[in-house]
């Protein structure tokens, strides 16, 4: 269990995190979402007491981070896979980390094996690809076999196989009862692995709920209908207040009307339907909708010339 209570952090005049409060439950993967510059990484650094919060703080299973005597046994954190000395080998990087928390040297080889880096463990980190560095970072997280895992953009730079692997690892950890907090920009990935979401914008909590609730609440919903008499159907649906947008000659998307209502209208007027399906926007749509006001670096839509 992770509890963040009233966490605030400012850098000069910039408020990075603004009285943020949320909980992360054990046994779930909790996605930590927010636009660029929304304060996710600062929140994670403050949670680990690397940055000093101005107010509030975090606790891990009821204790603040500095009260953990051997933190790697309890909290595995990966803030940035780039936090390695390029001249040190992957194995030696893990060895100093392991030694600091009295973890045996054999554990280093175990985690290297687990992340698939055994064959390159003796090579200097500067020869590693970004994906290999992410795997090394994850090996560091797993070193102490922690019950709580905090990861900032762990899928960054990974290939599809790597992304899938990290997803499987996190889902497995959660299924073992671990508390997993993971930030990511890959919303489709998040939709596949997260149970809960903590969504922030401009340092403030926008929403904490399950992924399903979040999509339900924020994503666009419409009805897709395919019919040989689509124009007739559009006429009756729009007369009931629906908005129609044609997809092709026989397919229309209707908003402001339910599938039940469309079905009943079609039956009433004897209109043949080839498809009638409810549609929901993706997590990405829901995220963009929910954070529209909190985008710090919003780009203009690209208009084809």
């Amino acid at each position, binding site marked *: 269990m992770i509890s963040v209570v009233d966490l605030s952090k400012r850098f000069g005049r910039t408020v990075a995190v603004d009285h943020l409060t949320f909980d992360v439950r054990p046994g779930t993967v909790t996605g930590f979402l927010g636009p660029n510059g929304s304060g996710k990484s600062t929140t994670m650094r403050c949670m680990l*007491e690397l940055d000093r919060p101005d107010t509030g703080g975090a606790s891990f299973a009821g204790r603040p981070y500095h009260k953990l005597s051997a933190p*790697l046994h309890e909290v595995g954190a990966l803030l940035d896979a780039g936090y*390695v000395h*390029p001249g*040190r080998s992957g194995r*030696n990087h893990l060895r100093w980390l392991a030694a*600091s928390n009295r973890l045996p040297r054999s554990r280093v080889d175990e985690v290297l094996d687990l992340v698939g880096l055994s064959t390159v463990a003796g090579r200097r980190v500067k020869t590693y690809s970004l994906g290999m560095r992410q795997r090394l970072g994850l090996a560091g997280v797993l070193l102490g076999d922690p019950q709580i895992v905090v990861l900032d953009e762990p899928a960054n730079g990974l290939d599809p196989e790597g992304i899938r692997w990290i997803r499987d690892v996190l889902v497995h950890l959660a299924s073992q009862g671990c508390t997993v907090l993971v930030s990511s920009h890959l919303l489709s990935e998040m939709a596949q692995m997260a149970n809960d979401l903590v969504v922030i914008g401009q340092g403030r909590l926008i929403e904490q709920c399950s992924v399903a609730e979040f999509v339900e609440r924020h994503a666009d919903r419409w009805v897709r209908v395919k019919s040989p008499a689509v124009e007739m159907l559009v006429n009756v649906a729009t007369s009931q207040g629906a908005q129609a947008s044609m997809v092709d000659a026989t397919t229309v998307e209707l908003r402001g009307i339910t599938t039940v209502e469309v079905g009943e209208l079609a039956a009433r007027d004897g209109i043949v339907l080839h498809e009638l399906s409810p549609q929901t926007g993706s997590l990405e749509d829901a995220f963009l909708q929910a954070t529209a006001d909190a985008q710090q670096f919003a780009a203009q839509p690209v208009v084809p010339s």
Partner: protein
Amino acid sequence: MISTINSEWIKLRTVRMNLVLFIIAVAFPVIVSVLVASLGDIDDLRVSDVAGLVTGTSVVTALLLGVVGAVSISAEFAHGTIRPTFAATPKRTRVLLSKAIVTAVFAVVAETLVVVFCFLVSSAIASSRGATVSLDGEPEARAALIGIVIFAVIVSLLGLGLGMIIRNTPTAVAVLILWPLVVENIVFLILSAAGVDHPQKFLPYISGFGLGDPNLASSDSLGRVAGGLYFAAVTLSVVLIGTLITTRRDA
């Protein structure tokens, strides 16, 4: 605490640059001592001359050990490894104290090796050329040889302290090296011009050099012990300021 020291020791010995610095730090005084003992004039050669040769050349070792000290923390900031370090050991003073212990022990061992080896080799070469070199009844030469080891330890900790405060490797190393070579010499000239008697007494680094000087003239310096203590006190202040900054600032 032992685990943190062990972790810092692994860090120190698993970076190739430290190995390169160590080799240069050992090789330079050995080569120069051997060359001077072999080729130099040995008429009226006294043990204090050999001790002076050894301590003079191994000042370079001390400065390079200072660079090792500075890099041991500044590289952590440069590569971001300070964050996993403090995440693994949230008690920052424990990390910094471990770094200080590892740096100081490394400096003692490296400088002692250099001094003993250089003195033995230089003495042997001088003896083979007919000179008599012995430390018996030569307390000043003996004190200088021990003093240069203490000097190296202080410089290595000064490097660590500067690294904590400055956080940037090139700047920290530049300050460490230029402080004695440039800054204190300029201050010396200014103080001399201002009519201050024995201005070197006020300069911590130059006072520290007295630790390894077998021909230290006590009249115009603080003397070996007082000068060493002055340099150590200044270094301790730098380390304490660095510790205060590192424990309070965001990592």
